[in-house]
């Protein structure tokens, strides 16, 4: 069962990559669709981040005693300034480690 889901996910993923190169798709998509596609990355990644940082296993919002919120905000700031994934990773992890050390 799980193998089937893995294979189908692979097929779906490959289709999103190959379709535009297949020659089967019109070269110019409707403006509305093109426009919408530009927002997909932000629109899917942001909820995943918010969920990973803010929501606990009981599906409650974890405000208290949650160093991830602080680390994520610092990381966001660093990313906005530096535009570097590597630097964002290093600073974000360093902040979490610092919290672990101090508290």
């Amino acid at each position: 069962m799980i193998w089937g889901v893995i294979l189908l996910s692979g097929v779906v993923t490959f289709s999103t990559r190959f379709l535009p190169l297949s020659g089967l798709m019109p070269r110019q998509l409707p403006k509305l669709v093109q426009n919408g596609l530009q927002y997909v990355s932000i629109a899917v990644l942001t909820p995943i981040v918010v969920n990973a940082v803010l929501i606990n296993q009981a599906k409650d919002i974890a405000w208290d005693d949650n160093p991830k919120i602080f680390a994520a905000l610092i990381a966001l700031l660093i990313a906005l300034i530096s535009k570097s994934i590597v630097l964002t990773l290093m600073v974000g992890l360093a902040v979490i480690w610092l919290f672990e050390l101090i508290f």
Partner: protein
Amino acid sequence: MPLQIGVFPFGLAFGILGVESGLSQLQTLLLSSIVFAGASQIVFAQLTSTMTPASIIIGTVGIVNLRHVLYGISLSEYLRDLPLRWRLVLAYLITDESFAVSYKRFSEEKKTTSMHYHLLGSGLTLWFSWQIATFLGIFVGHFVPESLNLEFAIPLTFIAIIAISIKDKPRLTVFLISALMAIILKDLPWNLWIIGSALIAISAGVLFSNLRKRTQ
């Protein structure tokens, strides 16, 4: 070079997460080669561990990967005349990272008949780094102390990608709305918060950018 460095902690974290979320070692490893798309593999692991129906898992993976269509459209200008076998291989290797470096190269330099080798190179480099990192995450991951919070590399990588993508007001709107919706919709069954937040935020972005054009 920076390609591999950036992707390595992410792949490592995925390897650990995959096994932790109940996938077998082989399933985790083959997800990296069959699907080969970081964000959707993370979602896959998360959703399978919370008993989400198969159709929702596949649908969510599809939505997460829709961005590839945009990459493909941009790349098709350079790749559409290649033989089918080339297009099949190169399509499989399209990722955020390989697209970013190769498209930059394509659009800055003169068209040549061998330029697609650049995408093959960046894609394969990334592919091998991803497989090795996943492998290490699966088999060596449990030696990494929990206090290192290596899994936090996943949201951190996404934060960086998001921050780099917020280039204008419509994208900022999409960011804020999707963040808000993730909280509002958190209790939806079957983890529908991912699809729900994404679709609402995308619609808001389209609406916002059209309204802005009309008033300008």
